[in-house]
């Protein structure tokens, strides 16, 4: 009998009952578990690789490809791809590769920052509504619904039109425009996040582990930060990735309408806007810019899909 006791048994000192300890081969943290599930989504993994390459390219590309973005060369106008200009040139003979790399920085930065604005604002609004109940909740949700029902594009155009010049004066043309666009896009995309977070809070608040924290005397901020928020963030991250894509598209739209960054600052959307008049003689110009936007948005959406699978709260709880 004694000899048959497996090594993995420890004796419970309180009851004298041996308790089997599951011999797990390796430690499984929730993060590692999520990564394992993400890896199974092949398109998402491929997308993550492609997007990383794009981000690295726009970050470090200009250090390698040292051609000025505004170097005008009338002898090489609207040239197709060549060794001197791998992506060809535009109507002023400016190198498109350099402009694409530079523009990618702005486009991706706008997407990520606008997403951050939307997620932060949405999470704060949703969390406050989800914790407070009653009139505060009703008020915040009224505000959310109000924002959702506003006609976004006209309002966006109006705001940019109104504030463009004053912000340019304060922060310079590039930074001023960046702040304006990020705030405007983020300011119109936080509502779905707020609703999501509020719904998550409502269901998590009733969970027994939150009740246990309350019984232990945890303050409301502690309950929120330690217990509710970490479990509510999965769907928010998923929604956030989709927001990055949406923000890139919105920035492109604004630039395409001529309301984005000024003409001397290339972004993918701006390049596409400039290229539209030469579609018949220099299609490469529009194709590279459009292709970059397309690829960025598509990969981000696939990554969002993968994260949805990986962070599905039902599988963790």
């Amino acid at each position, binding site marked *: *009998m004694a*000899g*048959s006791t*497996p090594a993995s*048994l420890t004796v419970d000192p309180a*009851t004298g*009952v*041996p*308790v*089997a300890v*599951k011999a797990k081969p390796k430690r499984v943290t929730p993060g590692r578990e999520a990564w*394992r599930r993400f890896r*199974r989504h092949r398109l998402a993994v491929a997308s993550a690789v492609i997007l990383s390459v794009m981000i690295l390219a726009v970050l470090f590309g200009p250090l390698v490809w040292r051609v000025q973005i505004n170097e005008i060369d009338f002898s090489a106008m609207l040239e197709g791809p060549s060794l001197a200009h791998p992506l060809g040139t535009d109507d002023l003979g400016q190198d498109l590769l350099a402009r694409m790399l530079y523009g990618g920085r702005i486009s991706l930065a706008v997407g990520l920052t606008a997403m951050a604005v939307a997620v932060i604002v949405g999470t704060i609004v949703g969390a406050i509504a989800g914790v407070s109940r009653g009139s505060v909740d009703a008020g915040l949700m009224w505000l959310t619904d109000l924002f959702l029902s506003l006609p976004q594009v006209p309002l966006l155009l109006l705001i940019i039109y109104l504030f463009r010049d004053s912000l340019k004066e304060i922060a310079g043309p590039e930074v001023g425009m960046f702040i304006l666009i990020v705030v405007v896009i983020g300011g119109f995309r936080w509502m779905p996040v707020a609703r999501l977070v509020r719904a998550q809070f409502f269901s998590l608040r009733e969970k027994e582990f939150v009740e246990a924290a309350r019984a232990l005397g945890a303050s409301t901020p502690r309950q929120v930060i330690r217990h509710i928020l970490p479990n509510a963030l999965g769907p928010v991250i998923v929604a956030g990735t989709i927001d990055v894509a949406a923000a890139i598209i919105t920035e492109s739209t604004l630039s395409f309408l001529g309301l984005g960054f000024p003409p001397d600052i290339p972004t993918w959307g701006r390049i596409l806007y400039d290229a539209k008049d030469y579609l018949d003689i220099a299609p490469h110009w529009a194709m590279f810019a459009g292709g970059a936007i397309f690829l960025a948005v598509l990969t981000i959406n696939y990554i969002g899909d993968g994260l949805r699978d990986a962070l599905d709260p039902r599988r963790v709880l």
Partner: protein
Amino acid sequence: MAGEPMTEPLLAIHSLKTHFRTDDGMVRAVDGVDLTIERGEALGVVGESGCGKSVTALTVLKLIQMPPGRIVDGQILWQGRDLVSLDMGEMRKIRSKEIGIIFQEPMTSLNPVYTVGEQIAEVVRQHEPLTRREAMDKAVEMLRLVHIPTPERRVHDYPHQFSGGMRQRVMIAMALSCNPQLLIADEPTTALDVTIQAQILDLLEEMKERFGMAIMLITHDMGVIAESVQRVVVMYAGRVVEEASVDQLFDRPLHPYTQGLIRSIPRIDLAAEKKSRLEAIAGVVPSLLDPPAGCRFAERCAFATPECTNAMPELREIEPGHRVACIQY
């Protein structure tokens, strides 16, 4: 052998193995199960969660997801006909017409957007050439049979308008509407309160008498087993460890697991006697991913010897109708 059946059993399962492919490997949920059910008999299948009792039942009706599930080996002889090789179309004819099933949570097995009458009528019409009208009448009749008050009215109600106990009655009515020869009841009372549980168990008993069907009652509750069935199969970690008549099992449990199970339950009928500590079974159920070689209960067994881990013990008959899988005997 005294109880030698004269005809073939209603259902005979031979060395059935149902495995599930998961990311971590094969889960051997059912790993060599043998059991038989005679006509008109109430057989109890008892065991803890993960012992394979529900998967066995679902495999009989081929209600498991395939893949990831797969019937790796074995036979399921339904009145002599092997169900393992039947395709889904033929299987559908057997379900509810010949073998009915009810589950623990009746809400999930009822469609919330149809009235219960429509749902019962649909089952009836799948197997019998009745008009919509006649099928609806049949539904009313079935609801009356399971003692639902004012069935003519309730037949037009939706599932959410019924309480848990009433829903289980609806499920029983639906399962019996085609007059099956076997009713599989998978933890039918686990989600119910004790007074409602008693009502449902009484109803099952009454229906069994009335229709002369066999019942396979799957439960984790030894008390329910003792009060509702004639013969019991005890399962542990995907295997049958003991099989006996209900009297034999409670009078003289042979397998150390069965003994432990019976001793670990607090008994209110002995409340007047001196209270003693419960005898818990140490440890936890082994993972079915990599089940231990040899007897699966060995690592929790107080009587285990090194021999126990060598080979899987087979079921052997110790006394008439009483079989056990343990090398002690």
